[in-house]
């Protein structure tokens, strides 16, 4: 009986994790692209350069296709929360129902203004059009912040008392503004915006890599590229600063998560920062890693004397899985890599602005990978955050095994949903390719039309 339970819980985690991973692709772009559209609309308004209006229009088309999957996949994870984690949702409904509820308001806001921006654009004044796409961005960003608030609360549950398994003294707003709220909210926003910006870079770089193009088309893509690079630089910089705050918050609130992320076994001051390496839990050693002495203490509390808690302080069965160290390194590595790349690109742009020297081809190749890399960073970050919270669903309140629905159907459902996700990933890519091949930008650029007259 116990074995069956463990399997059902694992399958529930697999099903929900896969659904989240799938939804995150579309949801992140659903947060990031609206900001880019707003930026392009603002550039159009400031510079009166038609190219920016065309950029906004084409990104809106891409966003429309992505939302076709983002909205139902969001419906899936929203409903699955209740179906797969009823034990968790029983507590959520008692303590942290507010962000879910306010998120609905954000959804409506986004859905209504998205329809207005797409289908009523020609009937709106310029100011109203800009306002409606701005509200789309606000709605998308707000829903990301609110759902992340529930996740923040799972790490730092506040706003209630648990007496003999009964929840009492509920303070919904204290739960809402739990200690992780602000850092988590910033993190999800800046990384979402960063991913939207780098996807714009990816698509511009993809077209810039094509040979024998009109100078006009190259100039157009170059504008998209630089807009993406600038926003990407800003957002990855903010993410790095926020990452530092997040690490300090982990040190304060979830010490075992930080210990697992850094594979620190013994509590110590002058704790080293471990980069890379393979962690062996049984011998409590790390092979092939690079240690920066004292830097973990410094990172956690701005002083080398800060004492950082090690894994041996907590019972072995409450350890998170130690592969999270690798995930943590990958996430941070991707973040800093993209930051460095964006800095290089901005430097190059301003250094050679006068001469108009183009980016070297190898750099454009790397640019074309930034969007997927950024998204990979986000996926890894979510897997890190949720795996390193294990065995808890609600930190020190509810174990994952208590939260899950135990059902024999999980395995079948897992196969069904994964097939649907694979199908939709393939089809969405094909539809994007098909649409933008059929409607090349050269047919929209004003000069082109004059040339054919």
């Amino acid at each position: 009986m116990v074995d069956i339970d463990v399997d059902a819980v694992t399958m529930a985690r697999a099903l929900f994790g896969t659904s989240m991973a799938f939804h995150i692709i579309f949801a992140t772009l659903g947060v990031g692209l609206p900001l880019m559209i707003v930026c392009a609309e603002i550039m159009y308004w400031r510079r009166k350069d038609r190219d920016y209006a065309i950029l906004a229009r084409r990104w809106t088309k891409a966003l429309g296709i992505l939302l076709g999957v983002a909205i139902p996949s969001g419906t899936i994870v929203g409903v699955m929360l209740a179906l797969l984690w009823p034990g968790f949702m029983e507590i959520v409904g008692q303590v942290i129902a507010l962000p879910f509820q306010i998120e609905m308001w954000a959804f409506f806001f986004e859905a209504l203004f998205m329809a207005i921006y797409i289908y009523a654009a020609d009937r709106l004044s310029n100011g109203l059009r800009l306002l409606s796409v701005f509200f789309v961005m606000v709605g998308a960003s707000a829903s990301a912040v609110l759902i992340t608030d529930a996740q923040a609360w799972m790490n730092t549950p506040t706003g209630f008392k648990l007496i003999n398994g009964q929840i009492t003294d509920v303070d919904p707003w204290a739960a809402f503004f739990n200690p992780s709220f602000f850092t988590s909210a910033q993190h999800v926003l800046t990384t979402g915006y960063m991913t939207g910006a780098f996807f714009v870079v990816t698509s511009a770089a993809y077209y810039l890599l094509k040979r024998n193009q009109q100078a006009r088309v190259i100039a157009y893509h170059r504008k998209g590229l630089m807009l993406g690079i600038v926003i990407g630089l800003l957002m990855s910089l903010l993410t790095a600063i926020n990452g530092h705050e997040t690490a300090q918050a982990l040190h304060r609130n979830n010490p075992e998560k930080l210990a697992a992320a850094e594979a620190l076994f013994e509590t110590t001051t002058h704790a080293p920062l471990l980069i890379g390496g393979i962690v062996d839990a049984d011998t409590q050693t790390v092979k092939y890693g690079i240690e920066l002495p004292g830097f973990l203490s410094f990172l956690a509390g701005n002083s080398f004397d800060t004492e950082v808690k090690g894994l041996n302080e907590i019972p072995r069965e409450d350890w998170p899985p130690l592969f999270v160290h690798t995930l943590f390194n990958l996430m941070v590595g991707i973040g800093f890599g993209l930051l460095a790349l964006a800095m290089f690109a901005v430097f190059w742009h301003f250094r050679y602005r006068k001469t108009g020297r183009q980016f070297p081809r190898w750099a454009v190749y790397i640019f074309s990978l930034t969007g997927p890399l950024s998204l990979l960073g986000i996926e890894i970050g979510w897997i890190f955050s949720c795996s390193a919270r294990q065995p808890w669903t609600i930190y020190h309140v509810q174990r994952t095994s208590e939260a899950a629905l135990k059902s024999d159907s999980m395995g079948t459902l897992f196969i069904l949903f994964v097939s649907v996700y694979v199908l939709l990933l393939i089809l969405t890519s094909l539809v994007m390719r098909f649409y933008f091949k059929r409607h090349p930008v050269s047919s929209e650029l004003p000069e082109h039309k004059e040339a054919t007259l």
Partner: protein
Amino acid sequence: MTDATIAITILWVFLFIYSLLGSVDFGAGFWSMLFGRDSNDKDARAAVVANNFLSPSWKVTNTFLVLFVVALVGFFPGATYSLASLLLVPVCLVLVLLTIRSAFMVYAYSVSKYGRTLRIISGITGLLIPGLLVGVLAVTLGGFVEELPDGGLALDYGALLKSPTLYAHLAFGYATELFFSALFLADYAQEAHDASTYRVYRRLAVIFGPLNLLTALLVTWSMPVEASWLVENLKHEMLWFLLSIAAFAVGYVFLFVKRADGSIGRTRITVICVAIQYAIASFAYGRAHLPYILYPYVTLESGITNPAMFRSLLIGYTVSTILLIPVFILFWKLFLKDKRYLKQE
């Protein structure tokens, strides 16, 4: 009124709105598929009108579905475990259909070359959804629940699939979808001054109206013995059900009333009457269902959240409704009133 009564009333309002919007949404997808076969067809305009409504509205309609689930779990967290145990598989099926339906609908807008195939898939998956959603109601009647040795609950698929009431519920869901969407689109076409499309949808509404009433009666006749508690309660609500039928009858008659311009049918009045019919009937049904959310395992009182959370949620819903109303009005004006939008190809 107790907290639980207020909460279930709010949920009922959400459910009522979604049952109408969802019917129009999935029905419009189906009709647009049916009439969109050939752009030279005489009924091809009917597909255009359905799409004109669907394109800006489907995301909003979808949000009402999520709203209902979120509100249910927020107000009645105590009901989550039992409902999830029973509904895991059926609701997951709805989710898969819904995902395919929405994604393929958007694909069809973007890829004209394969638009026909994509639209068929989206139209048919969408058509199937409302029946399944109404089928969920059958599960809450009791009688299809297995009690597991560890104290958990599971759905007894054998009993459910053999039960005529499931099929009556399914039929009612589909008839409502086809009737109300046709009726609504007839009115929408009227608003667009599109006489030929209006005639197409009005005729469908005339056909599906009585069918819809018939399936509703089938649902009440097919109640299983386990639902005798509900049948007893339903008898007390008889007056309401008669009023509901009267509202339908009045609305249906107005489908045949001649207008000043010579065309037949005052569809706006019919739409309002049918909305009233559904409001009364679902309210009476909901009242008869009380105090049970899931008979006999979950009642309102066993499911309701704590008073502090309830108050916060209530304030939240009030504030958000007030903030959203102007946006809904703007949406209404742009897509349901503005002739420039309604008349576009």
